[in-house]
């Protein structure tokens, strides 16, 4: 389906079906009529001096939320992570390499300046400038060039085919800023809200943008975004009515939120996972039988039940979650099977090997996953030494640097992104370091293809390759939990992240 997105956008946009598509999703989540007015306070997991108004530097959910409040992207996600028309009225391509984009007419920045193609060119191409310090510089490398062909028209050329550009451009990092803007002490976007106060590490206050390009939206008068890093405090703040919306409710707090008559939980099954990485550059961890042994040794049910209190989706050692349009449901679920693990281990001749395994608070739940694995491994004669290392600096000093480490992977908008960033042999973040020529070839083929069915088939095979051969064990995908005041309406999950993939601001309304 993702493959269809581009077509979808361009076709429907040409047909002027944009409003209908958006209305449909709005109607589904909010049966009653949205009202205007209201002011809410939202608490996210973190706030720090690193808070930024520069979309390119967005680093965590608080940043993403803030950026979606203030800016708009060329496209927007829907519940299936498809890129829907945003500032772009239409996006057209024939080869998945050269894209022509037509912008919506009559859109204005908060300072009154009308949106033009130059703004978009600047917003996209700045990611390639190292000085920008963009978090998505690696994704932006595929932007070979962009040029305005008219006040509202531009051409984007990619370095290679990528049919999922519309979905990629819906990401918060690619929202549109004013041409030439380098100063981000305040925000000037085209988003649903206008920045009124921004104090890094303290708060962001935004008020309704009366000239938002979606008529009637947004609904709230004012949103105050703060960070409460302590989960208990965050839940307390929700329950005491000091904030109306929080994200990252831990499974342990679910009972408390559910017990409150005034509050509700939103579950968002996501593609976020914690994986065991078996490096391909080590003779032991690259052994196919060892890899299989570890995969069979993973007690997914226990992990889901004990570590996530059920708020997780069982994974099948490949990075595409079951609810994803590209999911290959034909791969049988790998069970927890110590006997098969023992068989593979013996086959690999590695029964008595002793291996260190690196876990850290930084990689969500990895400490407990590591100990569970260690316990089961001990039963089949494999000695794993769990090395717990500090969260600070884990990514730079340990992750991928030892034969066995745990890592976290964020949900990517598209299967293509997921595979390209973390599984392609040339990728900088090829976490396992595996090199599968067939995988690389198929991935390139999928990108070039414009046929949805063909793409789905290829992605299915890629999933199987990873499931079977890649040194990665993916036990479960995490379900995100947001808590909110019952009077807050218009919410629906977008699997990219909490708070509707961080885009809640323009959808929610206050029923009071």
């Amino acid at each position, binding site marked *: 389906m993702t493959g269809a997105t581009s077509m979808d956008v361009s076709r429907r946009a040409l047909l002027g079906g944009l409003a209908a598509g958006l209305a449909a999703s709005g109607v589904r989540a909010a049966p009653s009529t949205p009202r205007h007015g209201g002011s809410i306070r939202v608490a996210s997991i973190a706030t720090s001096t690193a808070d930024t108004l520069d979309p390119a530097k967005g680093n965590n959910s608080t940043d993403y939320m803030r950026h979606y409040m203030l800016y708009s992207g060329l496209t927007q996600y829907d519940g299936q992570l498809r890129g829907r028309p945003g500032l772009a009225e239409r996006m057209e391509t024939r080869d998945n390499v050269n894209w022509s984009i037509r912008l919506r007419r009559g859109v204005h920045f908060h300072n009154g300046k009308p949106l033009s193609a130059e703004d978009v060119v600047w917003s996209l191409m700045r990611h390639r400038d190292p000085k920008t310090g963009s978090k998505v510089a690696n994704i932006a490398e595929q932007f070979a060039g962009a040029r305005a062909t008219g006040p509202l028209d531009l051409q984007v050329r990619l370095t290679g085919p990528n049919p999922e550009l519309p979905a990629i451009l819906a990401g918060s990092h690619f929202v549109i800023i004013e041409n030439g803007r380098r100063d981000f002490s305040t925000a000037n976007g085209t988003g649903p809200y206008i920045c009124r106060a921004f104090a890094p590490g303290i708060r962001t206050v935004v008020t309704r943008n009366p000239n938002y390009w979606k008529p009637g939206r947004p609904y709230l008068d004012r949103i105050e975004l*703060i960070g409460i890093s302590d989960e208990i405090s965050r839940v307390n703040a929700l329950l005491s009515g000091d904030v109306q919306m929080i994200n990252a409710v831990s499974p342990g707090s679910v009972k408390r939120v559910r017990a409150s008559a005034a509050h509700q939980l939103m579950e968002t099954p996501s593609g976020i996972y914690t994986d065991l990485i078996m490096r391909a550059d080590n003779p032991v961890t690259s052994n196919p039988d060892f890899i299989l042994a570890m995969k069979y040794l993973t007690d997914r049910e226990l992990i889901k039940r004990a570590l996530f209190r059920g708020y997780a989706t069982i994974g099948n050692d490949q990075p595409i979650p079951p609810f994803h349009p590209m999911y290959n449901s034909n791969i049988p679920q790998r069970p927890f099977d110590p006997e098969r693990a023992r068989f593979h281990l013996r086959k690999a001749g590695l029964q008595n090997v002793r291996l260190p395994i690196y876990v850290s608070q930084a990689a969500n739940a990895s400490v407990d996953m590591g100990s569970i694995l260690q316990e089961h491994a001990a039963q089949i004669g494999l000695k794993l030494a769990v090395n717990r290392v500090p969260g600070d600096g884990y990514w730079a000093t340990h992750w991928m640097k030892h034969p066995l480490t745990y890592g976290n992977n964020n949900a990517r908008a598209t299967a293509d992104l997921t595979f390209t960033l973390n599984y392609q042999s040339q990728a900088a973040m090829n976490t396992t370091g595996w090199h599968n020529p067939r995988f690389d070839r198929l991935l390139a083929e999928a990108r070039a293809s414009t046929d949805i069915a063909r793409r789905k088939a290829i992605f299915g095979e890629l999933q199987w390759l990873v499931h079977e051969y890649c040194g990665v064990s993916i036990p479960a995908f995490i379900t995100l939990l947001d808590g909110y005041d019952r009077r807050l309406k218009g919410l629906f999950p977008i699997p990219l992240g909490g708070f509707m993939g961080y885009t809640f601001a323009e959808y929610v309304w206050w029923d009071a």
Partner: protein
Amino acid sequence: MSGSASAQRPTWIAPLRLIAARIGAALLTLLLVSMVIFAISGLLPGDAAQEALGQGATAGQIAALRHEMGLDQPGPVRYVRWLGGIVKGDPGTSIVANQPVSKIISERLPNTLRLAALTSMVAVPLAFLIGVFSAIARGRRLDRALNVLTLSMVALPEFLVATLAVLLFAVKLRWLPSIALVPQEPTLGEFLRAYTMPVISLAVIVVAQMARMIRAAIIAELDRPYVEMARLKGVRPGRLIFRHVLPNAIGPIVNAMALSLSYLFGGAIIVETIFSYPGLASLMVNAVTSRDMPLLQACAMIFCATYLLLVLIADTVAILANPQLRKG
């Protein structure tokens, strides 16, 4: 020693000299502190360039940023440059927030000061009363009751106390907000509501420490002969404490207060975290995790300088309160 010696010089010379010596020592300590802080912050693994750019950064990007931040300079050079900046009141630019450190701190420092001031206004009189009363009632029932009270105040981890308070007063009773977010232009009511719980949570710890030290200071004085003499003069307990004992115990008492109050700065981390209060301590934690060295160093310097300043004030009060030191 003798009266004749001090009569030769104006009486304010002696205390001034003592105080000047203390200031000198404090400044020297502060210099040492600055070295330690700089050295310790250099021990932190990872570097700001890496942290700022995240996992996806290329080596070229990191090198460019490192150069831009001056991280490729040798340590002593960076220290001297940094110290020079501090002295001139410019602690540099936050490498994470890309703003002057002074600006970031100027947003937080008033918060920390306000919380500390409010807490002191509650804690100091309370601790004083508890300390004095338990000293007067030494060994008697009131003393033992107050002892158990102060003990139980510090018996539990502060995050638990604060969380309990939130559960009770914010979640259950809804009397007070669970987070200490003060509106831009608060009314007195909003202001007090926002601060009540953080202040109480902090005060609990500080009161207990202070009260116990004040009690000890007073009891040490109560054993001195002049107290017996005062009793034998027919001085009643109230006058005994306030007119006779306190002027002599003021040195240790202000010292105890200085030590406890310095806790309100660096020690407020947990209360700041629980109540999402944007103070300096949480800013510093932030700086540690994001490897924002200029910010981290500036915060640490502020904490240490505050401590030294408080101790200096305590010393000065002690010098001025003691006629032997005051008059040479």
